[in-house]
């Protein structure tokens, strides 16, 4: 199939519902499954659909059989499930998989859910991520040298980028400051006090070269989106958000096997999505990219082709991505300042849908018609890129 044929196929599909669970942030009194279920209810309400309409179930957690757990908990018997679990990009990739299943007529309505107690699980007995097989590569060749979670690997990738291209702490801080300005316009964001470049640079080190203000939050949150055919979407409550282009890519699991530390798989998934949508970078009105760290957003802009490799630092300088800047990015306040429960990709989808519908109030990007969404998962391991648009 050429790009035009693929585009025709995917344009038959739209996101019709999107929402968070009732409370996000610090939610110790609710479990993970509750977060999924509330988000599912809210997103279905947003779409004007009932749970009984859902025949495809997509999620990336919890446990060894995520969709079995979620379908049982919700009380549905889906005829199609997809537990693709490739990190925080999973939910963006689920949209592509759901679109394919809908376009081929396998299902009518896909429900994609997410929920994690990234903050509160640290205080709950027996919870957290399962231990790894001792013969797996990470157990043998990384854990004996210490792996301090995501900051370890992302900091090391960032360090190589700084060495190779001269990217500076100040340039990374530009992203933290700009993203905070968006969070100040989002009532649901956790961190809403203004910060300066100097605040970022003087905040404590987590893993050099990252200060704590280069790192995302760790919160409790859930979200869900509902995807269906464009035909069915026309009769629903809200303006359909069409899937115009989509790409997915995977290059490695852990850092030692990463082919090039200074880019991301978005260099593969991005061009696929743009080619399918048949749009240019200049036509994009709003950009929502996973910002697990300031660096993740910076390198993603390069990988997607908004600027050249190594030019991300200059590109984001001068508060270009902030409200009022000419490149609105991460308009909900991002994983850096709004919320980040662990696998944040769901929330860039929700924000892109809201921007394209014109529902964002104070932080609304004027006349947003085309959005580029990019989820990054693992240790810069997997990406899903979507080009979304409205009539």
């Amino acid at each position: 199939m050429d790009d035009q044929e693929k585009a025709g196929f995917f344009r038959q599909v739209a996101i019709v519902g999107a929402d968070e669970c009732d409370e996000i942030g610090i939610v110790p009194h609710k479990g993970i499954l509750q977060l999924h279920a509330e988000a599912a209810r809210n997103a279905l309400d947003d779409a004007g659909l009932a749970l009984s309409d859902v025949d495809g179930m997509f999620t990336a957690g919890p446990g060894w059989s995520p969709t079995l757990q979620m379908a049982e908990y919700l009380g549905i018997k889906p005829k199609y499930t997809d537990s693709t679990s490739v990190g925080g990009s999973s939910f963006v990739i689920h949209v592509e998989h759901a679109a394919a299943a809908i376009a081929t007529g396998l299902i009518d309505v896909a429900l994609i859910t997410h929920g994690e107690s990234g903050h509160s699980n640290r205080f709950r007995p027996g919870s957290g991520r399962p231990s790894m097989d001792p013969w797996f590569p990470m157990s043998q060749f990384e854990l004996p040298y210490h792996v301090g979670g995501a900051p370890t690997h992302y900091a090391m990738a960032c360090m190589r980028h700084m060495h190779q291209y001269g990217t500076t702490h100040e340039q990374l801080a530009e992203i933290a400051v700009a993203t905070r300005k968006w969070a100040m316009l989002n009532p649901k964001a956790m961190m809403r006090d203004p910060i300066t470049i100097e605040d970022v640079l003087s905040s404590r080190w987590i893993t050099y070269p990252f200060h704590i203000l280069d790192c995302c939050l760790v919160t409790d949150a859930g979200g869900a989106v509902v995807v269906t055919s464009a035909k069915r979407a026309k009769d629903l409550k809200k303006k359909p958000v069409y899937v115009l282009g989509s790409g997915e890519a995977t290059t490695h699991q852990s850092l030692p096997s990463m082919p090039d530390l200074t880019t991301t798989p978005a260099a593969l998934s991005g061009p696929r999505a743009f080619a399918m949508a048949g749009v240019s970078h200049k036509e994009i009105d709003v950009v929502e990219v996973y910002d697990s760290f300031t660096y993740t957003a910076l390198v993603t802009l390069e990988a997607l082709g908004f600027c050249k490799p190594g030019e991300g630092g200059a590109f984001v300088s001068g508060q270009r991505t902030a409200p009022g800047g000419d490149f609105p990015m991460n308009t909900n306040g991002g994983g850096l300042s709004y919320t980040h429960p662990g696998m944040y990709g769901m929330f860039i989808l929700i924000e892109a849908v809201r921007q394209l519908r014109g529902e964002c109030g104070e932080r609304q990007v004027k006349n947003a018609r085309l959005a580029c969404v990019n989820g990054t998962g693992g240790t810069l391991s997997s990406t899903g890129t979507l080009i979304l648009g409205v009539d």
Partner: protein
Amino acid sequence: MTTEYNKPLPTPSPEAKRYWEGCKKHELWLPHCKICEKPYFYPRDFCPTCFSWDIEWRQMSGRGTIYTFGVHYRHFHPGWAEEVPYVTALVQLEEGPRIYTNIVGVDGDPRNLRCDMAVEVAFEDVSDEISLPKFRPV
């Protein structure tokens, strides 16, 4: 030494047994693809570049450069509580492969480290069975 060591220890897998046997003798051995004519990391029974199973083990020089590094100011395992700040790195061996390791013999001040700095292997005997390859500036 054995009684005091409280960090995670590797459990050698069948395909990595030769690697850990080499380390025990303070030698760095990696599998080498006879088709691609290059070594690879991490050990497995086939070449991850061409999927050839025609491989042999070869000893590496132990010399390389810091491809990248991170300096850690927090610990996620009690074994490192006394060692903050410590350095994790990807070392690029002169034969090509990159391995995840620690840089030792440095004070953890990032100003004293840089990418592409020359390093050599320094084995740390952590149990009766395991010696960990770490690296120090040359």
